[in-house]
């Protein structure tokens, strides 16, 4: 991350005095529509949106404005920030074994999933409600679903289904995600390790300070390691920051991680334990503090916090780390973010206008790399197109590894896989094939039972009859428009190839319906459905 360099370069400079940054040819409006729809809503654009932009590329900007108001936007942020927080693990170090309600494996899996989502749901809530991003570390509430409300010391602050604002009842200081169970179950600590790993997580996630994960030299050492930690600049550079930051977090240190009542609660009586362990009082980067609530306020007031929010949004949408060439637009996005009152909607809308984001494919170093759909985008697109979502016993098979295929299809669990796969592998292809086959089968089955006027995919043909190659080609063209978000000519290689495939399959199975299932699955397995 280059936040430090960018911050120094941009903190005091007006926008127009920064370096001009790179220029890249802009992608066409349909490409941008697909890109933004997948990035901001997690699904392909609708046919109406595609046709509007085809007819008038200038219609794109208004559609981009609408996308950040779409209910899919906060859901998308949950998935995006899972790559940053890395909390959506299927397994935590703490034990659930002492809660008898969790004898049901599926229920335990759903609970752990909810715990991991708790901090991510606060991100989504701030975006949805257009609340200032600083509430991420200052909010006097968290988000909880019925499972968390049932098993953690929480009370709901609002009526409602799903995720609602809630308050902890165990006297923990209210400091947004810093008070969440999910963050500290993912990043546990021991008495002896004094929350250093947790401090490292705070630095990386909230301040984009990843120097704690940089390599340091130990070679040739003959001195005592503990002494070096205190005196060697290569050690003190990190420990002088980590150790006092960890001192804020003693209320979350659990002596027995097998004890359900301990790991589900904050212990205010331990807050001062730093005095008898490290002896290092709480500080955030040299600024003394007192408790967790104070840490949240300190973070919110730290200019790096806002800078990190901007950097994170840019990295997530540009699909790469920031470079010096990004300085001008970093400043622009930060100004837009600040000007909006720290609205995530405004920030992401601003980044979508970044010329690197809007650029056509390029092999230039500063261009955004090709994007591959993440599991949530795949699931969202398939569900929007077909009505099918691969769940089993209520658990999303593209969002779990205990049962499902999240990592096998290229996703992130935050522990064993911390960055999404770029290239498809054997397992990616196999997992994609199966979910594509399932979605196609569901879509054909469902639409076959509907009146033609109610269908969304198969408007051009009777699914039970052979309509002839010309009609098949028209239907294939329509499917490609909906699924790949791009219109192909009737005589294009792709349309002709799929039409020929349909013919071969219909002839061999004597089932037009089955042929459509397989053709649609092929469309979902094509690289143009995966890469955007």
């Amino acid at each position, binding site marked *: 991350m280059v936040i430090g360099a960018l911050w120094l370069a941009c903190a005091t400079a007006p926008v127009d005095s920064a370096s001009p940054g790179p220029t890249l040819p802009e992608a066409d409006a349909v490409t941008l529509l697909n890109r933004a729809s997948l990035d901001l809503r997690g699904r392909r654009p609708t046919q109406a949106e595609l046709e509007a932009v085809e007819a008038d590329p200038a219609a794109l900007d208004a559609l981009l404005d609408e996308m950040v108001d779409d209910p899919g936007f906060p859901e998308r942020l949950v998935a995006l920030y899972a790559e940053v927080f890395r909390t959506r693990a299927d397994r935590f170090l703490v034990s659930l074994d002492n809660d008898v309600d969790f004898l049901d494996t599926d229920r335990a899996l759903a609970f752990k999933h909810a715990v991991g989502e708790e901090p991510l749901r606060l991100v989504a809530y701030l975006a949805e409600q257009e609340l200032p991003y600083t509430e991420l570390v200052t909010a006097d509430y968290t988000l909880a679903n019925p499972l968390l409300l049932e098993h953690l010391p929480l009370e709901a602050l609002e009526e409602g289904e799903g995720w609602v604002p809630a308050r902890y009842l165990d006297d923990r200081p209210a400091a947004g995600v810093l008070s969440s169970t999910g963050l500290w179950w993912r990043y546990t600590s021991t008495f002896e390790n004094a929350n250093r790993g947790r401090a490292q997580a705070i630095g990386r996630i909230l301040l984009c300070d990843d120097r704690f994960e940089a390599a340091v030299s130990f070679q040739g050492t003959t001195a005592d390691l503990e002494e070096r930690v205190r005196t060697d600049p290569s050690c003190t550079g990190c420990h002088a920051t980590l150790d006092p930051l960890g001192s804020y977090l003693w209320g979350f240190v659990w002596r027995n991680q097998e004890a359900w009542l301990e790991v589900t609660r904050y212990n205010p009586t331990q807050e001062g334990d730093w005095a008898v362990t490290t002896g290092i009082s709480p500080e955030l980067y040299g600024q003394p503090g007192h408790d967790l609530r104070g840490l949240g306020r300190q973070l919110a007031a730290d200019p790096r916090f806002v800078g990190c929010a901007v950097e994170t949004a840019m990295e997530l949408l540009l699909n790469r780390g920031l470079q010096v060439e990004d300085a001008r637009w970093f400043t622009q996005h930060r100004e837009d973010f600040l000007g909006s009152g720290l609205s995530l909607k405004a920030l992401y809308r601003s980044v979508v206008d970044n010329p690197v984001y809007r650029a056509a494919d390029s092999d230039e170093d500063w261009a955004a790399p090709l994007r591959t759909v993440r599991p949530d985008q795949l699931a969202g697109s398939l569900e929007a197109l077909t009505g*099918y979502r691969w769940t*089993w016993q*209520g658990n999303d098979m593209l969002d779990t590894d205990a049962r499902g295929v999240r990592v*096998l299809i290229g996703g992130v669990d935050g522990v064993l896989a911390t960055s999404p796969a770029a290239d498809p592998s054997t397992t990616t292809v196999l997992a994609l*094939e199966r979910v594509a086959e399932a979605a196609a089968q569901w879509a054909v089955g469902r639409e076959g039972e509907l009146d033609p006027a109610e269908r969304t995919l198969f408007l051009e043909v009777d699914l039970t009859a052979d309509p002839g190659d010309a009609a098949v080609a028209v239907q294939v063209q329509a499917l490609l428009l909906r699924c790949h978000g791009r219109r192909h000519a009737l005589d294009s290689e792709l349309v002709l*190839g799929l039409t020929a495939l349909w013919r071969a399959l219909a002839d061999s199975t004597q089932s037009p319906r089955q042929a459509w299932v397989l053709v649609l699955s092929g469309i979902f397995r094509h690289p143009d459905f995966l890469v955007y």
Partner: protein
Amino acid sequence: MAGLHLPRRALLGGLAAAAALPWLPAARATPAASQRRFLFVQALGGWDLTKVFAPVLDSADVEVEPEAALGLAGALPYVDHPNRPSVAAFFDRWGDQAALLHGLYVASIAHPSAIRLLLSGSLDAADADWATRIAAQAPDDPVLPHLVVGGLYYAGELGVHVGRAGSAGQLQGLSTGELLSQSDQRVVAPDPALSGEVDAWLAQAIASAQEGAGTAARAHRLDAHAQALERAGRVKDSEGLLDFRGGDVLDEQVAVAVAALSQGVSRCVTLAHPRRDDQVEWDTHALNEGVQSELFEDLFAGLGRLMDALQASPGPAGGSLADETVVVVLSELARTPTLNASNGRDHWPCTSALILGPGVRGGQAVGAYNAQLYGQPVDLASGEASESGTWLGPEHLGATLLALADIDPREAGVPAEPIEGLLA
């Protein structure tokens, strides 16, 4: 079309059956280095060198257990202890083929970066781990070049060559389509012959897209897709003869690994001890002594069974799998020489690795620790500690593993020489 010729069920009815039915080759073949396979066992979290690897028994700066003693397997010294009989049993049986590599400085004491550094020699996300690099150059194009049954991997830009088996055998269910039976919205996988027609169309469609890729990045992505599609087809064609199931613990992971290596499905397999999804059990900041002792006893008992299984199974090159497979056991960190107030040990930046198998000069320790448990520089040619030698890091481990795989480390961009003293 390499590697899908041996019906696994005829070979292995489980690990116990494999061990009970020793496979005796008519002639023991010595495979070329390029044909060697690799099995990595990750004991992530940080192991305690004083329990097995570093017999620094009379130093005032190193706390050791009361009954710890020097064990010798030929010229290979290790720590022997009555609570860990499996360690001695392992070295008695396999010590002549095993080398201990000491004093690997991992330039971090934070788990995430230490793991990445040890496994890949780099913190750059573009760099793949050693196993994936070796697997990517498999001469026989296996269907899953680097199969990850447990633990971590870093694919870098070689993602097409690596894949997970899934914590509940999901890869098996994907290959047969049976996993779709676990769907709340009821669906069934189509007839394999019909989906094969879609595969053929898709391969042609990708080939057409490759012709008009436009950018090198898109061409690379399409190449990977085509390669993955072809390999996935071979997995499906096996019609369930491949079996990627198996449980969480090491023995159950070993069953999957032995089958994959024996059938040429993979060149490299990665496992995790004690569980496939674990990277914390070895991280003993508290109650170190008992936990580490139990973990080492369990690990070496498991390694013994692993070696039995390798020896009892045929390798793709014609020898036993033990003749063809280099086993690498590692942990990203070690633990401090002295106990903390919670009877734990904290992170220590120099660690050891156990390497055994073809091409390894066994029966020796390469490198050494001093009385404060710091690694010492090593003469790469002899493997002996030498003040004028080289400080060892993950890059030396990587260079040595690549050399064992017949890959030139320099050409592979590894900034280190192999440890010749470890190579037979």
